[in-house]
């Protein structure tokens, strides 16, 4: 049965240019700029210094408060510097710069060969934490925290998010095709950790190969493959749960409040690698694509690889670039330069051609209601944008559910007045957060 969601949009999926391309291996870059801030939360702290020799997989940064995730060296070589370099999300951010020695040597005694079945849940959570695994769909939320829900939340279902609803991106798809066994193993591991009996893999029906492959691999396991309608934002956590379980996560709550955990395909492969082979998260599949990229690819890239290396691997550009986006075009982050590097959350890098960039002037809302029709959170995006414009950020929050917006961008996508509603909403959220902080510090 095909599962559908209400609202949402159908952007051109643009996946053709990479969906049949095998994951290539990037030649070893000369220098890697590994950011120590790779998850949501406080940045980790470097534990190496300039001049140190490092091996592949060696710990190079550690969480200061124990809640963040550690960072490991993606290759062997020498630390030349710890300095601020462009990060795709946080402007300039501290990076451990590693000059590769070209050997790509693993740290001695690091790799193991063990079976997940003999390990206990607590042991596996510890392994996942130590190997620096985060949500690889874009949010970069530390996986070990997600897998340790408070005692009072009973989780009974695991959902594997394999929708990949963003246009252009094919990294999850290729991971499923080429690492199907690892993905399934990761799913079983997480099911064991959470103690759940039922797992679902949600895949959009524009990926029939992945659906049939996964169905075959899931035979005899407690995992069910669910076909989802191809529609953006099907891969948003709450939509996924709605489509598969027909449960609505209450506003302000998390999936665990409806007894559910959602994991991304890439993260599950990383989990499997970590638990069985003790491989830390040091590389990931990245889709490098866009109209101006000569040979779009899916590539296994090491964390810390500059974007320039990736585009170089694609044969460079044809035609003028307008934007470079990390992530998909609906929710991704526009980049200031090509100097930013691959991080654990980089699912893709998309170039938007000069002539595709649409800078049409924003007009007044003509009350067409299209944004309301597509808002999957069932908000009034037009009202939110107008309130933000007028500076009534508090009203937006108290009366119009500002905080429920997931910033999926569907409202902007359909707005004939080209109102950048999402931007307005972000502004309101930021203003309100500032106000809250001011009140907090004021009352101290």
């Amino acid at each position: 049965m095909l599962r559908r969601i209400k609202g949402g949009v159908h952007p051109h999926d643009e996946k053709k240019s990479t969906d049949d391309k095998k994951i290539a291996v990037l030649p070893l870059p000369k220098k890697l700029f590994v950011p120590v801030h790779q998850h949501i939360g406080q940045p980790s702290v470097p534990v190496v210094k300039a001049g140190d020799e490092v091996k592949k997989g060696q710990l190079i940064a550690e969480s200061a408060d124990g809640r963040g995730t550690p960072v490991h060296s993606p290759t062997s070589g020498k630390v030349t510097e710890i300095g601020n370099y462009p990060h795709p999300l946080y402007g300039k951010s501290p990076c451990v710069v590693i000059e590769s020695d070209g050997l790509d040597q693993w740290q001695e005694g690091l790799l193991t060969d063990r079976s997940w079945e003999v390990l206990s849940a607590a042991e596996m959570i510890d392994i996942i934490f130590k190997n620096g695994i985060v949500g690889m769909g874009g949010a970069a939320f530390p996986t070990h925290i997600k897998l340790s829900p408070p005692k009072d939340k009973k989780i009974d279902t695991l959902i594997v998010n394999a929708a990949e609803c963003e246009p252009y991106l094919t990294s999850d798809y290729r991971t499923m095709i080429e690492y199907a066994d690892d993905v399934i193993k990761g799913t079983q591991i997480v099911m064991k950790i959470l103690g759940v009996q039922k797992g679902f893999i949600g895949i959009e029906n524009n990926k029939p190969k992945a659906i049939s492959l996964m169905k075959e691999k899931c035979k005899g396991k407690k995992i069910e493959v669910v076909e989802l309608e191809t529609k953006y934002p099907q891969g948003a956590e709450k939509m996924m749960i709605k489509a598969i379980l027909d449960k609505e996560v209450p506003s302000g709550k998390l999936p665990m409040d409806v007894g559910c955990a959602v994991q991304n395909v890439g993260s599950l492969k990383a989990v499997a690698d970590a638990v069985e082979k003790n491989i830390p998260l040091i590389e990931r599949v990245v889709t490098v694509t866009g109209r101006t990229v000569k040979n779009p690819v899916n590539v296994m890239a090491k964390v810390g690889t500059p974007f320039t290396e990736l585009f170089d691997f694609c044969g460079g550009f044809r035609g003028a670039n307008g934007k470079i986006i990390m992530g998909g075009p609906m929710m991704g982050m526009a980049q200031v330069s090509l100097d930013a590097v691959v991080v654990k959350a980089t699912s893709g890098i998309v170039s938007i051609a000069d002539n595709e960039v649409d800078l049409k002037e924003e007009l007044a809302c003509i009350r067409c209601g299209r944004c309301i029709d597509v808002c999957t959170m069932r908000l009034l995006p037009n009202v939110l944008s107008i309130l933000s414009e007028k500076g009534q950020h508090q009203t937006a929050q108290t009366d119009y559910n500002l905080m429920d917006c997931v910033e999926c961008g569907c409202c902007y996508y359909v707005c004939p007045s080209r109102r950048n509603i999402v931007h307005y909403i972000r502004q309101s959220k930021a203003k309100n957060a500032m106000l809250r902080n001011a009140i907090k510090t004021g009352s101290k």
Partner: protein
Amino acid sequence: METKETTANIQKPEKLVITSSPHVHNTESVTKIMWIVNLTLLPAAIFSVINFGLPALITMLLCIAGSAACEAAIQYWRKVKVTVSDGSAVLTGLLLAMCLPAGIAWYVPVIASVAAIGIAKHTMGGLGHNVFNPAHIGRAFVMASYPVAMTTWAVSRIGNSADFAGAMGKVADFDVVTGATPLGILKQQGYQALVDSFGGQSAMYKALFIGNTGGSLGETSAILLILGGLVLVIKKYIKWQVPVVMIGTVALFTWIFGGKVDGKLVYFTGDPVLHILSGGLIIGAFFMATDMVTTPLTTQGQVLFAFGCGLITVLIRLYGGYPEGVCYSILLMNALTPLIDRYIFPKKFGSLPEPVTRS
């Protein structure tokens, strides 16, 4: 910005555009929508020129030029960007012309245009901010100011000469034969007189459907208007529920309450077909009650709006002083739109009671 040493030697883009997400759009725009709506009205507009001749064309051009010029003048004066090219003023002018009789004195369309654009649209703040449908404000304004001129309806040339070729031959003709509209006859002389004037009921329906009757420019060619409206429905520029509900409401209530025998009301004897095909209901339901700016935001709200329009139209037609009523019903419902929007809106995600858990 310092650059990093890498082995890569690709040419870096000189400048990149930075905006917040999303970075793609479905390419719809206000301008595109407005011009397409204009286009869908064009067949009916051309038909009205054939039907009423040059005077219709002149009325139409006066309205369009008047609206566009008025918008340009106001925006120039306010020192804001002149947005005539977005097609919305042209659309207002065209819709306004469709509500006026052919061959009306030149100053009436001009004054109506100024009322539509100047008063209804720009005093409210321009496109997107107006509460009332500008074209209908323009019409209501001149209806109040020039009641005689506004009820002196041109009579269809095709209808009179019973052939297209004859009408085509006379397109450049300035003479306007005036007469009453079907609903006018119905109001003053009763149903039987109306049927007789067409020479039978089926002849009447046919004449109404094709457009061989008297009336305003846009009142006459139901079929072309419906075709235009269908294009809008298919393109998802309007929701099918709105015209269906509005027309359906009118049909239902005129059928129940519209029939009279010997001057006395007899239920379920009204003639819904007559009411659907005349008095500008079709153009109102497809093109005016679906105006984005002045109608509710949500589909449910729009359905309520359409129902209200239909109901008020029937009240005016059957019990009011005017033979038609589409214009006033839509204006009245425009006034209720903010209220409808206040009470009808989607319930946010996650606020529904939890469904029974599936096993």
